[in-house]
């Protein structure tokens, strides 16, 4: 059982900034995210694109924003459960919560902050018969452990960055890598496209284009895929693994069944006060919530996270007196023993 003060569901910009605001109040955070990396939409959808409306940054790449948020929260030593989806929530007698993931990992916290954005990022699955039957038996949509593919035959399908990047990476690990795409053209960073071209020329990646995987061969485990190439008869490519990489799409998923008030695929919260949901102790912040006038913007998520942490503090310590201190005045004391503070002014006579 993982224990923490605030359990944050979603490690997008809102969830990440919550760690900092909670840390100022000496509250510890643990985050769950379905993605294997933090950053939410910023890292999954547009890491290399610029954002122009982060206060004080005339321009910042979404990937750099994620890196800076992580750096800002480091001294508060957050915990992460990545690559798992929060599935169920159970309220305990003392008012605390236990949240369990699809992999069975349990988390216990007094406060739950849902910062789930547009929802948990789930792989987009091509429509291939009996595809789901082979999931985890040779079909994978997200590559978590590259070692799984050591000296194995791998077929990747897709035409974007992740298909290119994984084909490049696995060409060093797997015994055979085949990349299948409906077009001859790929949509990715120029250097990835060029690298795949090089590996193809060197015989390290086999390309089948324009073509599509139409079926899977195997009893319990994948042994091959059926490929249709324009103007040719369908043929089978022997393989141990089939990895369809068609991007991820966000789905609100299990959170919709937690008894929270939902409107337009978002969680209704009290925006006059603290972004709490209809269940006391559960908050919803960032893109995942809705209230009159809601805007799905990063800076709004930051604001909501800040107010939510104050309310969480009062719930955890109802009897403690608290006054907000500016970070410039109070400094930032990490859970790792570090302390940042403003340098003292010099008081010295001028002769």
């Amino acid at each position, binding site marked *: 059982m993982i224990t923490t003060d605030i359990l944050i569901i979603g490690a997008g910009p809102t969830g990440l900034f919550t760690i900092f605001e909670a840390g100022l109040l000496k509250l510890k955070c643990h985050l769950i995210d379905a993605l294997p990396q933090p950053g939410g939409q910023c890292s999954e959808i547009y890491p290399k*694109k610029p954002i122009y409306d982060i206060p004080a940054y005339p321009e910042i790449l979404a990937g750099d924003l994620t890196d800076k948020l992580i750096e800002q929260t480091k001294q508060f030593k957050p915990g992460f459960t990545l690559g798992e989806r929060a599935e169920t929530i159970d309220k305990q007698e003392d008012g605390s919560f236990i949240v369990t993931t699809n992999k069975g990992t349990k988390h216990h916290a007094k406060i739950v902050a849902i910062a789930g954005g547009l929802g948990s990022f789930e792989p*987009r699955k091509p429509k291939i018969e009996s595809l789901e039957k082979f999931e985890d038996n040779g079909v994978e949509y997200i590559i978590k452990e590259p070692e799984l593919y050591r000296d194995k035959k791998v077929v990747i399908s897709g035409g974007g960055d992740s298909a290119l990047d994984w084909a490049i990476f696995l060409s060093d690990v797997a015994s055979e890598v085949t990349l299948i795409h*409906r077009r001859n053209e790929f949509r990715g960073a120029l250097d990835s496209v060029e690298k795949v071209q090089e590996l193809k020329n060197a015989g390290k990646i086999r390309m089948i284009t324009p073509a599509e995987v139409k079926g899977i061969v195997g009893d319990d485990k994948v042994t091959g895929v059926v490929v249709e190439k324009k103007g040719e008869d369908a043929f089978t490519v022997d393989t141990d693994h089939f990895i369809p990489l068609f991007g991820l*799409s*966000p789905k609100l998923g299990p959170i919709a069944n937690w008894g929270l008030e939902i409107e337009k695929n978002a969680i209704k919260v009290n925006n006059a006060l603290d972004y709490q949901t209809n269940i006391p102790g559960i908050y919803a912040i960032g893109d995942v919530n809705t209230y009159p006038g809601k805007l799905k913007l990063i800076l709004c998520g930051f604001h909501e996270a800040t107010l939510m942490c104050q309310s969480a503090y009062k719930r955890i310590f109802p009897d403690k007196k608290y006054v907000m201190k500016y970070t410039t005045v109070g400094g930032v004391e990490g859970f790792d023993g570090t302390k940042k503070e403003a340098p003292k002014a010099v008081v010295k006579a001028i002769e």
Partner: protein
Amino acid sequence: MQDINIKITDRNGVKHDIVAPTDMAMNLMEVVRSYELAEEGTIGICGGMAMCASCQCYVNSDTELPAMTDDEDAMLAEAFDVEDNSRLGCQIQMTPEMEGLEVTLAPES
């Protein structure tokens, strides 16, 4: 600037007659969102950058559309349920030339 009349069939097969402004720099995906013709969170995921295909639609009229950019073409090559008349709604700007446009939203994927 004038408004234009377009017809949008939603994912449940219901046809809507829509009046779209041409002076708001709106694209078809945004028109669908502003009239709430698709559930929030199921369209416009990438905000209109031709990066998600959640705004895919089938064009049923012979309206002369803006040419496809490489980005749109490549995204459609990775999308599901693609037909010859598929386009990305976020790449179709509401201009006076779009008067009479008729589209059907592609299924959610």
